[in-house]
């Protein structure tokens, strides 16, 4: 018997706003425990929630990018449960009226483009962070109240690959709209997967298993593929799937049981009485959409229009921050290829070696553009440019001044180049013969000899040109 998987995914995205969803406590990752906490986050009596404007703008932007209907009236609800991660005894969320509904994204599935429908997108607050140790639990309330959006797909996903592509697409959207840093390893994008199997052609859903705490896009795929195999095995041997919550064990590469599910919890939702409805004007919603940053696809198209190839464009787009730096470099639409080579070559290697992020890179885009202009004008060679960059990373000095101090100037004098070439030809008759017999490497060798004779100071492009002319004349 053949089975098909029915998969739905819930994604929680932490927004990178300055303050929390309903209080003005600072909102960032990595602070000392319990230092980003306001009276409201601790549910002290007399405190009242206020809705963060930027979080609403962010939710509108993502809803728009997910092709959703946007609700222009905001309502919030209380989800009541008693647990130590929630000091108020309830979470403020949007149960009845999510800000976004009925959307979709297009993903690249194994069978081509596929539309994955999205049921809803709503705003809510995160809980506090619990650290479960062997015999006790520690609570850090810094995360309590962090603005979240939850995105719930319809069960359109059929396998691990599609799930991986879907999560990656959502991550790309929230990162490039500057809504979240989308770091699954830090928990700023978390996803729970619901998966059931049914015989092909059957309309009734099978018993649903939930997989929680998936901390990377590749683990989403691995966990689902394993779970499909596990459930198929049980069903084929006549067993019954039990309703349960599982987690993915990275070492064993399999899902393991967390708990059996009983009846669904009744959260006794009701309207949050401390937040009256908020009416969003058409102008407000449109402005939120219009001021959204370009999507990854739009950026890629732009890079291609400036002469990068698809691989080069994708390489810059692997990091939102890197692509933003690159955008500043190419504001003038000049020296694009050289700037790409400098950024993805020397700069990236410097960042990796020193374990720093591009946001902390000392060299200003304008100085890097000046360096690229020196290279592209033939004033200096690319290798000389690399030497100048090695000095620029120390104090972000003007590359022209460094060039002067180091005495780096490329010799483009045709007379000088011709005499170097003639000397190389005279000293290497065998290479000339090899080249004439079709060995292209011999030509590179000859150019290298000229660079050596000139101590690397002549323009290599001109050397190639002159060398070719001289050999052709022989």
């Amino acid at each position, binding site marked *: 018997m053949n089975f098909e998987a029915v998969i739905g995914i819930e994604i929680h995205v932490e927004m990178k*706003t300055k303050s929390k969803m309903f209080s003005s406590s600072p909102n960032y990752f990595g602070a000392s425990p319990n230092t980003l906490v*306001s009276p409201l986050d601790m549910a002290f009596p007399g405190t009242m929630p206020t809705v963060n404007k930027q979080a609403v703008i962010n939710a509108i932007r993502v809803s728009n990018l997910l092709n959703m209907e946007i609700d222009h009236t905001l309502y919030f609800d209380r989800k009541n449960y008693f647990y130590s991660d929630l000091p108020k005894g309830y979470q403020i969320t949007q149960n009845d009226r999510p800000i976004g509904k009925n959307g979709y994204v297009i993903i690249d599935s194994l069978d081509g483009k596929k539309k994955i429908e999205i049921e809803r997108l709503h705003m809510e607050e995160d809980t506090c962070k619990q650290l*479960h140790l062997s015999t*006790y*639990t520690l609570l850090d309330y810094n995360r309590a109240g962090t603005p979240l959006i939850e995105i719930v797909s319809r069960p359109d996903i059929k396998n691990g690959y599609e799930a991986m592509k879907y999560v990656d697409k959502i991550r790309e959207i929230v990162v490039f709209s500057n809504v979240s840093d989308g770091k699954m390893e830090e928990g700023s994008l978390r996803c729970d997967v619901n998966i059931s199997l049914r015989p092909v052609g059957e309309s009734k859903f099978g018993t649903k298993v939930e997989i929680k705490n998936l901390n990377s896009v590749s683990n989403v795929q691995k966990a689902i593929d394993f779970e499909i195999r596990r459930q198929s095995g049980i069903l084929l041997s006549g067993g019954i799937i039990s309703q349960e919550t599982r987690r993915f064990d990275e070492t064993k590469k399999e899902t393991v049981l967390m708990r059996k599910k009983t009846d669904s919890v009744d959260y006794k939702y009701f309207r949050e009485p401390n937040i009256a409805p908020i009416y969003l004007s058409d102008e407000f919603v449109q402005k939120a959409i219009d001021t959204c940053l370009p999507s990854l696809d739009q950026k890629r198209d732009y890079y291609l229009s400036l002469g990068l190839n698809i691989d080069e464009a994708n390489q810059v787009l692997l990091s939102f921050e890197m692509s933003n730096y690159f955008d500043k470099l190419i504001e003038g639409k000049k020296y694009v290829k050289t700037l790409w080579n400098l950024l993805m070559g020397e700069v990236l290697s410097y960042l990796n070696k020193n374990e720093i992020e591009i946001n902390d890179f000392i060299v200003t885009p304008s100085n890097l553009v000046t360096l690229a202009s020196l290279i592209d004008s033939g004033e200096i060679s690319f290798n000389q440019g690399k030497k100048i960059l090695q000095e620029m990373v120390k104090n972000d000095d003007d590359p022209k001044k460094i060039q002067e101090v180091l005495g780096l100037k490329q010799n483009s004098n045709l007379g000088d180049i011709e005499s170097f070439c003639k000397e190389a030809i005279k000293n290497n008759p065998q290479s000339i013969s090899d080249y004439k017999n079709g060995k292209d490497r011999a030509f590179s060798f000859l150019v290298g000899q000229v660079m050596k004779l000139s101590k690397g100071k002549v323009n290599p492009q001109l050397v190639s040109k002159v060398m070719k002319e001289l050999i052709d004349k022989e």
Partner: protein
Amino acid sequence: MKEVTLELLKQCANNLLFDMDQEQYQTLLEEFATLFKQMELIGKIEDIDSVTPLTFPYPCQSYLREDIEGETLTLEETLKNAKEVEDNQIKLPKVVL
């Protein structure tokens, strides 16, 4: 609808870590009886499917707060009510939901 009995009220009070005297339980039972009668009356009203539920007693609205960082509690204030603290975090018996 669940029947509200004296036993149920006592169980609820116990869950909430308080108790009442007999007279107070009797008052509460009478109040529930009145409340249920009122609900029954409301339930008899017809053609209300298209009526939007009233969640606020009169027309009102909230406003959005600018995303600006405000003041926080000091660490001491945050941890003041905690029985036990370890590494500046509140320590609890382990309960994994």
